């Protein structure tokens, strides 16, 4: 009996140690302990034994059961440790395999910059306005103090829209400034507004000229608005765009709808000694601006004795090109995925 048990135990131990998985181990364990299994078979035989043998046989079966249980537990633990070790070994992982491509789309870089600016200005109390791209000649020029035959019209090569005879002439807006006219018609001073959007110029395209591009107009009207306010606001704007304080320079610039009119240059944020962005001058021409011309305020129905205001323009396309180092403006609207995917 003793040797029979020892053989059984040895047989199980051999099978346990060669079991490759918890599942195999589990099936061996069931063989030992389930109904009709080895241990149950032994215990079932006990009643049929001589009474004198019964107690010993029962004890021996239970001893075998305990021994097996302990061995199975050890085997399970061994397999669990082996599994952990296997997993830790990491298989044939190669850290230099290129990353699989994740599917993602993109927002156009103009959208990204425009949103940043909208958020920046909204945080400073500006409303975001929109205006038509096919605009009345009156709003694009006349109401902005650019009369017919004004030489300033030459600087803005204009697309003229076919208009039925007798109708007011229409243009593709050459700047976002006509939104000023519409803003003044709809908003009561004091107000602050920006108007980002598409503008058009009838000109031959090359790497730095495009017949369709994006601008953002800004307009502030209130009591006691001065050039000092304009400079302060532009500094805040540039700080928002470039994430740090930027030195600015204000010099005269001529735009018929402002008086005085300026070009605001920013100290080139990309270099110290001059680079291709600033054409080696360390200044970049960024923001045409000025106090709103009294004629323009009047055309907007605003009392020029009580209110004054300033307006500014920002080239969104230009800002995008500067930010990303884009060398050719025509990439922006070409719709080439090889370009768009990069943003």
């Amino acid at each position, binding site marked *: 009996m003793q040797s029979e048990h020892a053989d059984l135990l040895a047989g199980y131990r051999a099978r346990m140690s060669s079991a490759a998985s918890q599942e195999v181990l589990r099936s061996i364990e069931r063989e030992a302990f389930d109904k009709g299994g080895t241990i149950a078979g032994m215990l079932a035989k006990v009643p049929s034994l001589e009474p004198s043998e019964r107690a010993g046989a029962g004890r021996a079966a239970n001893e075998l059961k305990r021994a097996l249980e302990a061995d199975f537990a050890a085997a399970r633990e061994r397999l669990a440790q082996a599994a952990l070790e296997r997993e830790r070994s990491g298989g044939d992982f190669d850290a230099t395999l290129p990353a699989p491509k994740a*599917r*993602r*789309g*993109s*927002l*156009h870089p103009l*959208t990204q910059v425009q949103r940043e600016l909208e958020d920046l200005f*909204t945080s400073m*109390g500006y409303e975001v306005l*929109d*205006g*038509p*791209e*096919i605009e*009345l000649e009156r709003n694009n020029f006349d109401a902005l103090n650019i009369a017919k*035959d004004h*030489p*300033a019209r030459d*600087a803005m090569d204009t*697309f*003229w*829209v*076919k208009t*039925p005879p007798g*109708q*007011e002439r*229409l243009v*593709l807006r050459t700047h976002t400034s006509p939104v000023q006219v*519409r803003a003044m*018609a709809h908003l009561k001073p*004091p107000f602050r507004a920006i108007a980002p959007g*598409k503008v058009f110029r*009838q*000109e*031959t*395209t090359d790497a730095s000229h495009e*017949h*369709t591009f*994006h601008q953002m107009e800004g307009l*502030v009207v209130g009591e006691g608005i*001065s*050039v*000092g*306010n304009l*400079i*302060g*606001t532009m500094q805040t704007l540039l700080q928002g765009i470039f994430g740090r304080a930027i030195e600015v*320079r*204000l*010099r*005269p610039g*001529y735009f018929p709808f402002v*008086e*005085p009119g300026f070009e605001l240059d920013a100290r080139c944020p990309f270099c110290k000694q001059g680079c291709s962005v600033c054409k080696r001058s360390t200044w970049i021409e960024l923001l045409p601006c000025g106090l709103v011309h*009294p004629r323009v305020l009047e055309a907007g129905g605003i009392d020029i004795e009580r209110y004054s205001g300033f307006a500014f323009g920002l080239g969104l396309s230009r800002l995008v090109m500067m930010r990303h180092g884009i060398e050719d403006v025509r990439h922006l*609207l070409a*719709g*080439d*995925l090889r370009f*768009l995917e990069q943003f």
Partner: protein
Amino acid sequence: MKISYRWLARHIDLSGLSAEQVAADLTLSTCEVESVERFAPCLSDVTVGHVLTREKHPDADKLSVCSVDIGQGAPLQIVCGAPNVRAGLKVAVATVGTSLAPDFKIKKSKIRGVESCGMICSERELGLGEDHEGIWELDGAAALGQPVAAALDLADFVIEIDNKSLTHRPDLWGHRGFARELSAIYQRPLKPLDTSLPPAGALAPFPVRIESKACARFMALCLEGAANGKSPLWLRTLLLAVGQRPIDVLVDVSNFVMLDLAQPNHLFDRRRLSSEGIVVRDARAGERLTTLDGIERKLEPADLLICAGPKPIGLAGVMGGEETKVASDTTALVLEVASFHAATIRRTASRLALRTDASARFEKTLANRDLPEAAAGHLVRTLQSIQPAVRLSAPVTDQRNEQALVAATAELSILLRPERVRKLLGVALDDAAISAILKRLGLAVSPADKPGWVQVKIPCERATKDLTEEQDLVEEVGRIHRFGNIPTRALLETIRPPQLGARRAIVRKLEDRLALAAGFHQTISYSFLADSLRAKLGIEGLPHSEVVNPVAEGLSAMRRSVVPSLLGLLESNRRHGQDVRLFEVGKGYLPYAPQEAGISPTSSAEPKEVHELGLVWARPPKAKQRFDEGVLAELHAVVADLLPALGRADLVWGPARTGELPAFAHPVRALVGRADKAPDARAVAVLAELEPSVRRALGLVGDLDSEVAFAALSIDDLQHAVAALATRYHPVSSFPGIKVDVALALPSAVPAADALAAIERAAKGLARGIELFDVYSGPNIAAGHRSLAFHVVLEDSSKTLEDKDRHKFLERLAKEAQGLGGELRAES
């Protein structure tokens, strides 16, 4: 426009001020300077030499061997090919090592066996015009051994000004105007300029008649005793510096005066004019004139002509005529100094694409008082300084037109409140400082009757356009004070929190959803639509807004919708990539129609602009494994997710009605989404595959064979829909629901929508979710039938559903299926 530093120095003392300094100060106070460059830089690199001897070259007839003293060391031996080289001449010598151009460095060389240690230069080689007939013969007084630029006082810098920044400043279109600016900036006086006319001879004045309102003034001066020829060096070099080619002394002096005082003028050869004199009149339709550049121009009544009697001899303010121009043998002249209507000149010049120095100045509105007489006097005095024999042979004719479109320029007075200057600029300048600045600019300031105001007198040359009202003077003070000296101030006002606007908020969410979740790339396209693309899409017949002057032939139409722009991008993008997913948020432009009022219209004539979201998806075709694969179904999944992403229920999708699909949409494989179930609800979204012939026309065949779907959503309608559609929230039931999978075998013609409705009815309001998970036809399904399998979740917010509820539902559904001509095929 180019201005010359040396030229400016004729009008104002610039000692101690470099050209760069002048440019920097003009930038900060006056206008935009584009560049500063040294004029003819070679002049500083070549040396004044003295030709000591000249021998014939032993082996070449046309070459000379010269010994040239350059003031240092031994004389140089130089071989020269010019016919005019001779002993005794002062010449410009480029020594060994001098570069006359980036790729032209003088080397010691042997020319036909004779050593040559340098080059004797012609004017052309030094950048002084076209003269290459021989070497440049320098003034005998030129200091030996000095750089030529210094010896002849030719050192100069060219300051290039951006013309756009001078649009409002007619006075700055001549050097004297710039000198006046510098005088204000540096507080240095202008040098006097003699513009008085010399005594006139006794001949009869030249007859002039003005017959057009576009001419306000016409002065004619008869000059005699001129001898045409090459201009003196000082004049040629000044003209060359500002990019003007010297022609001959008469033309050069005329140009010089224009570039000096901004007043264009014209010299006629007296012999070519008729005795009837000059008539200034509007052109007649069909009249022709050959201008100085040799081109015959067809004229229109809007053009203004200078005529000799009946015969046109010049296009007023733009260009003279070929026939009456001065010649080499001209001695008697008629000088025209006139004032023309700016817009008339501008229209003619731009119609004929003939922008000249003269027209550029006239179109800025030059003063018609003080300036013409000054220019006339300046021209006569300048010519006399070169040719003392020139004389004024008759009294000056000075016709003034009282009926002219532009009245005679008067000195203007503007009332100014110094307080207004302080308020608008935001500076603390006192009244005296403000007056001082204005005086530096040549404006006279005197007290006004009203307290707090002063009177400012504006001279003629500034009064035509630039300085006409109070705020213009604010700018004058600001720019001379320097805008950079104005202290920065914060905007102090209560901020009313602005709304970003409903449309922007929606658009941002849609963009994010498409770009970040659905893997679409956003593009922004041109608003123009090529005729060729319109034809391919079959929409060439639709009315489009059009521009009159497109950038290219066939590119005049403005798109009505965003989708055609996107479709135009498919072929090129498919060439570079397999899976093309693009979207655009942009405008469509509907041509004006009476029933379509514009957005925030200020006129009924405005075209309507619509905001749209367009999507396209193209990829190589692949076999469908499941009913919900394929580009149309997958795009549908993307689009159907958009409204839920906005927190709203999806649109109601169904077949399109007649007229709802664009011509390029597949006639059957298309659907539309509406904001509600009402039978007349407008389509907010259109979703379709491409019309098969359009797909071929777009080149998406062969290697680029693609399955293509597109969607167009009206953002304007979507904005209304978002407001109208219910939010998606359902209370979370505390009673568990039951899941039932059902399959309905129905005739294929029965739309899925009917099956869905049947399930809704059978569920009696308890259907919490119905999801189609399979569409099947084949073995076990009757011919002409298909099986639609759904996951259905039944849920009651007031009680736990039991098995009997499920049985009742299935019983009702079986009846519904029979009603649709099919059966409830499976359940689980």
